[in-house]
């Protein structure tokens, strides 16, 4: 039977997307259903887990209306990470799911966060990993935790609804902070930290393994065929990397979204404040990920709040004016920590700054400095990852909305001093899940996740660094000045933090 298509479910914070890919990696059908989240209290971010399944069913039904179900060989899930829901033995939610960006567990991070937890889980202490939010539940809603039969990540939840099995990929579960990253098994030590038993968690399998088949009920609800193989996926960040075929050392992906994520493939386990260590979608390997929360967020903030105009026309004028400014913004630097900093400093009190203002600087200088500041941040991340792993990055693939901003890509290539590849194709994250599904099915007879990724991830165009001589020298000089800004400003950020919390 010729079954040329694979389907990916990409359930992010804001939407459930379903995409059908042909073996060459081109999306042939897409459906999208929006998701909502609620913030019942400052810092709290929650979602109704039932809504995940409802949205997935709607998006799959819409997708399957565009393709022949018989053509689909397998399905795989990628998803927002760290988000979890506590379910009773019937699979009913005991409370709303707590999202990755929920910051309620700051005091649990302060109390439990340690070098040891970082070493075992690969996750520097922060409010992101589920572990600290489970500890919050233990402190504030102990009854919920006691009645919990299963703590499910988004992947586990959808797999259960699709197949009836409580199984998840270790590349989906590891962002929780409960997995020993050296063995890809739940760590009894980490579980003890929050008082969970291993039987309260779904079984772990390697990404790319076939977990089970779509049940009759699920087939009815989605339009998929009963018996369709369900393949273990991975979190959305790692899947985006796989979608860009970042599965060898020396390669990195740069996801230029609201947050900017830099991910490097690693053949060995490393733990460092410079990155979070995640399971690669390539089973048994790792992804080292540096995150700047305010990436495109900084650009959107600039247009809306500083320039006072965030229409596409206004951005176009701003980009054009910024492109005319000499590289280095005539000595103006921007520290893009307008929503704090994660890697490598892990300082929620950090703030943004323009430093070096002179009368000659204008709006376009300030905007260019924002683009350059985000790029300097990536340069620091790459160099720290390099010195931790001993492996130099020579190839970078950019994706996400920002990858269509040609000035930003050029600034990144120039400041990193490396070629940056971009693609016209979108849905790179879903493609990562599709690659896992295709590899599991050996759709074209050639197996292996890495080989499949190289085949399906296509259409990349290289943007070379353009600057040489004094311009490149100037960027190197500014990078040194930039790298010293946070160390000198961090006591001032704490000083401001003390005032603002009074």
């Amino acid at each position, binding site marked *: 039977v010729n079954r040329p298509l694979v389907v990916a479910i990409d359930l992010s914070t804001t939407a459930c997307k379903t995409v059908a890919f042909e073996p060459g990696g081109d999306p042939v059908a897409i459906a999208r259903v929006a998701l909502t989240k609620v913030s019942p209290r400052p810092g709290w971010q929650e979602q109704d887990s039932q809504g995940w399944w409802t949205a997935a069913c709607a998006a799959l039904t819409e997708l399957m209306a565009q393709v022949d179900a018989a053509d689909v060989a397998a399905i795989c899930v990628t998803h927002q990470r760290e988000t979890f829901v506590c379910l009773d033995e019937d699979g009913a939610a005991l409370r709303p799911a707590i999202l990755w960006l929920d910051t309620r567990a700051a005091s649990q991070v302060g109390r439990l966060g340690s070098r040891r937890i970082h070493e075992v889980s690969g996750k520097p202490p922060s409010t992101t990993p589920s572990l600290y939010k489970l500890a919050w539940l233990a402190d504030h809603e102990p009854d919920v935790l006691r009645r919990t039969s299963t703590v499910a990540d988004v992947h586990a939840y959808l797999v259960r609804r699709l197949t009836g099995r409580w199984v998840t990929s270790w590349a989906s579960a590891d962002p929780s902070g409960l997995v020993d990253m050296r063995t890809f098994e739940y760590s009894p030590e980490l579980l003890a930290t929050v008082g969970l038993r291993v039987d309260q968690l779904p079984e772990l399998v390697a990404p790319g393994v076939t977990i089970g088949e779509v049940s009759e009920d699920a087939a009815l609800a989605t339009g998929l065929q009963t018996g369709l193989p369900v393949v273990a996926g991975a979190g959305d960040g790692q899947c985006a990397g796989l979608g860009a075929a970042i599965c060898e050392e020396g390669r990195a992906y740069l996801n230029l979204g609201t947050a900017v994520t830099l991910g490097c493939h690693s053949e060995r386990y490393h733990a460092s404040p410079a990155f979070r260590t995640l399971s690669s979608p390539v089973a048994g390997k790792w992804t080292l990920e540096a995150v700047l929360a305010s990436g495109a967020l900084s650009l959107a903030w600039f247009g809306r709040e500083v320039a006072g105009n965030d229409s596409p026309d206004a951005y176009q004028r701003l980009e054009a004016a910024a492109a005319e400014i000499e590289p280095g913004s005539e000595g103006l630097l921007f520290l893009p920590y307008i929503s704090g900093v994660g890697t490598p400093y892990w300082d929620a009190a950090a703030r943004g700054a323009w430093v070096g203002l002179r*009368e000659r600087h204008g709006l376009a200088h300030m905007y260019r400095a924002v683009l350059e500041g985000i790029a300097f941040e990536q340069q620091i991340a790459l160099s720290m990852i390099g010195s931790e792993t001993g492996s130099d990055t020579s190839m970078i693939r950019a994706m996400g909305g920002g990858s269509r901003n040609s000035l930003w890509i050029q600034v990144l290539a120039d400041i990193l001093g490396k070629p940056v590849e971009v693609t016209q194709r979108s849905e790179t994250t879903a493609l990562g899940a599709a690659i896992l599904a295709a590899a599991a099915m050996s759709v074209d007879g050639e197996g292996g996740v890495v080989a499949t990724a190289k085949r399906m991830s296509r259409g990349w165009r290289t943007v070379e660094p353009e600057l040489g001589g004094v311009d490149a020298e100037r960027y190197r000089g500014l990078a040194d000045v930039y790298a*010293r800004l946070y160390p000198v400003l961090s006591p*001032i950020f704490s000083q401001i933090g003390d005032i603002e919390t009074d």
Partner: protein
Amino acid sequence: VTASGIVLGLDVSTTATKAILIRPDGSVAGVASSEYDFESPQPLWAEQDPALWWTAAQESIATVLRETGTSAADIVAVGAAGQMHGLVLLDADGDVIRPAILWNDQRTAAECDWIRETVGRERFIAITGNEPLTGFTAGKLIWVREHEPEHWARARHMLLPKDYVRFKLTGEHALDVADGAGTVLFDLRTRTWSDEVVEALGLDPALLPRTVEGPEVVGSVTEEAAAATGLRAGTPVVGGAGDQAANAVGTGAVVPGIGAMSVGTSGVVFVPTAAPAIEPDGRLHAFCHAVPGTWHLMGVTLSAAGSLKWLRDELAPDKSWDELTALAEPIRPGSDGLVFLPYLSGERTPYPDPLARGAFVGLTVRHGLGHMVRAVLEGVAFSLRDVFELVRDTSPEPLRELRASGGGTNSVLWKQIIADVLGVPISLTRTAEGVATGAAILAAVAAGWYPTVGEACEAMVEVAGTTPPSPDAGAYEAAYGVYRSLYPALRESFVALAEV
């Protein structure tokens, strides 16, 4: 004594020469202004042809007489004030040898270093009260001697800008002590040329004009000048003052305890002192006051209203000043943790650092343009406080009030922020023309209207309104603490940015 008639004050500024007519009660009979520009033939240079000043002075005097219908016979005395430090060189015939080198000319860094070495920095400050900065006249003299020997050979008289205008009015070579101290060739204590400094620098004392006090009569209007201006020949002309001292007279800052503050492009805090007071590190200017027997201290922050103008020009060019400052109104003191360092043009007081730069520090996604405007208003106020505190702490007498002037004081919000941050009442006087008014008041003393400058100010300067610190002035303390940490933290980055 019943004073009668009218006095004429002149302000020979960098951009215009203004003429003001003032009655004995201090009321303004009329003002006229004639504008011009300065030249920058090379980077760092700033020059002006002295003929521009004389032409503009003739025009503005003639205009104000004509427009007010004032008879020249009613003008009882003339005072001139104006831009300080500019070097005018005249030959034996009284002709100008080269364009004047202005206060804002920066070419003399090497000459200033040489002066420091030759006299010794500490000795120089001890005698003159000041560092030999590039703005001051001494370095400009040495520069001409080194670089233009043919001009130097012809030079017989040096004057400062408004002294040149007075020379054209009276034919007298003279220079008042308030402006004269700004040559930094003065002995601050004796209020005249320092033999030691003049000799150490190898200058010919014959080049230097006689020195006079501000309200002292230098000479009278010549027939030729009368024909050119419409003034009556024989009208007495006084010494006058440099613009800062004249502005202090014009706003009533003539006794210790009452200072003057200007919030223009740059910000200046000025306090009269009863005795010469010197900041030992030379971070303040210490000059003679235009009031005989008194001195003053002065500090400068280089970008005051200039910072707000920069923000408007670059970020909100379509907004009026009122619209711009209205954005800052609803923001709480402290700008929600956003702090602005206003060193857009480097800084002078309290950090003499040409490499210093500006910064916005503390940005979050919650901040917008309104926060940035408020942070600028607060950051400039913090910088004025730095200057104010250094001036206050160096001055032997306590300071209880500041007489404010300059465009920045037009904003009610900004005036209140400055009063709150400095913790001192800010008063505005009736006139916007503090410099020309000060020159006129000095003339009024010479005319015998009042026996002293102090009494003249009491009669002629009227405070139009005072802004005291508000009860919640303490709200700025914490943000000022953050501000104080910024420059020390960023200084090395500023040096590094200059090298990149």
